[in-house]
């Protein structure tokens, strides 16, 4: 029972083409409990007997995607520990790679956006950028071929963390009242539009920000992975058809084109990690800035 069986099933059938859909993104338990397989068929509805099926905690907590995220975390921590040990004033190749990435976040994101106060928030941004980046690249590399952040739970989690971070930064600097007032009512607004500005700013700064952060990251990876699935699975299905040369030819084109999509997805994965990190820095900056 391969974890990727859900993706491979259309190939096995060889008959009717089942397009990839949201079910293609479903997680699978690493150790499915008894009855789980029967109640989670790859096509069609579950049997009626599954109405009272109760998944065990391992079905929800030890899934392939959770495990993938944990491996990504290990990769990130391992990478940083590897490049950071035995540092010298004149860097070697290993340290140079680490410093290149570290400087990109430190100088290119943190210091650019946050100015002098960047040092306090630098660890958060370093962790955030590399964690998202590795997870996004998992969509194109290694055993997984699945971008972890196309499961909405993970982007929600990071967006909640960023939400807590920038609000905590603002409250710590100004106190709750001053910070809240600063965030909902920008200075210099005429009194007669305050009734309009206050709800808008509140919505924008406290609701829309974390949601757009999470949704932007999720939607880019979800859509990208879905497009890859369409080209690869559809292409493979077309290649398998015996009686049509045209189908087989378009299947080959589709598979070849999927490589271009893979390259694009690598770029989008890196770009989305960058955007998430820059926006986090930007939100922190707007929370602690003297002038709004």
């Amino acid at each position, binding site marked *: 029972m391969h974890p990727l069986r859900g993706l491979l099933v259309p190939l096995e059938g060889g008959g009717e083409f089942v397009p990839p859909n949201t079910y293609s993104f479903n997680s699978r338990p690493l150790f499915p409990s008894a009855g789980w397989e029967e109640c989670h068929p790859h096509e069609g509805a579950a049997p009626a007997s599954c109405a009272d099926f109760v998944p065990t905690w391992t079905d929800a907590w030890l899934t392939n995607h959770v495990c993938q995220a944990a491996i990504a975390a290990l990769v990130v921590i391992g990478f940083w520990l590897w490049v950071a040990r035995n540092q010298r004033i004149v860097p070697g190749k290993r340290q140079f790679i*680490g410093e290149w990435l570290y400087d990109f976040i430190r100088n290119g994101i943190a210091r650019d956006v946050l100015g002098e106060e960047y040092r306090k928030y630098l*660890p958060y941004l370093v962790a955030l950028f590399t964690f998202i980046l590795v997870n996004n690249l998992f969509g194109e590399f290694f055993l997984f071929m699945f971008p972890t952040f196309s499961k*909405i739970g*993970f982007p929600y989690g990071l967006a909640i963390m960023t939400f807590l971070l920038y609000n905590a930064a603002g409250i710590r600097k100004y106190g709750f009242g001053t910070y809240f007032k600063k965030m909902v009512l920008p200075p210099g607004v005429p009194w007669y539009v305050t009734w309009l500005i206050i709800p808008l700013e509140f919505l924008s700064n406290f609701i829309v920000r974390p949601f757009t952060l999470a949704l932007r990251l999720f939607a880019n990876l979800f859509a990208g992975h879905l497009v890859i699935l369409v080209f690869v699975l559809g292409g493979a299905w077309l290649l398998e058809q015996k009686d049509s040369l045209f189908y087989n030819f378009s299947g080959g084109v589709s598979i070849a084109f999927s490589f271009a999509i893979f390259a694009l997805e690598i770029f989008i994965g890196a770009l989305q990690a960058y955007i998430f990190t820059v926006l986090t820095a930007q939100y922190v900056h707007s929370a602690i800035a003297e002038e709004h």
Partner: protein
Amino acid sequence: MLPLEGLGPLLPEHLSELFVGIALFAIIWFVVAKKIVPLFEKTYAERTAAISGGLEKAEAAQREASAALEEYKAQLADARAEAAKIRDDARTQAAELAAEIKQQATDEAARLVETARVQLEAERSAVVRSLRSEIGGLATELAGKIVGESLADDERSRRSVERFLDELESQSAPAK
């Protein structure tokens, strides 16, 4: 839960994703904050210190070098001045010495000439004296023989001989 069903992929399949995501990120954040960033920043600080320290050292070396150069230049100028002075002194001394030697030589020559002159004078007067008596005697004797009488002890003849000799002398004196 029912109204959320319509969210489709926007609803987490399992809440575990949310919590595991937060927990994993928190662990990474912790490790990066406690270990990675301090290590990198320490290296950067050391690098900055090393570079600025090297610059200071280079500046100090430069200052030292230029100070040494100034000193050497001053010493060289001193040496040149001293050499010129020595040369001038030597020249002056040599000139003085030459003048002195010349003077000495001149003096010596003059002294020698004077001595010779005095000696010559003395010898001449001695010769004159002896000649006077001898020539007088001879002339008197010759005259006595010629006139036949002795004029040896004659006072008169002696006087005339003297007169004659004085005349001779006065004639020869301007020629001297």
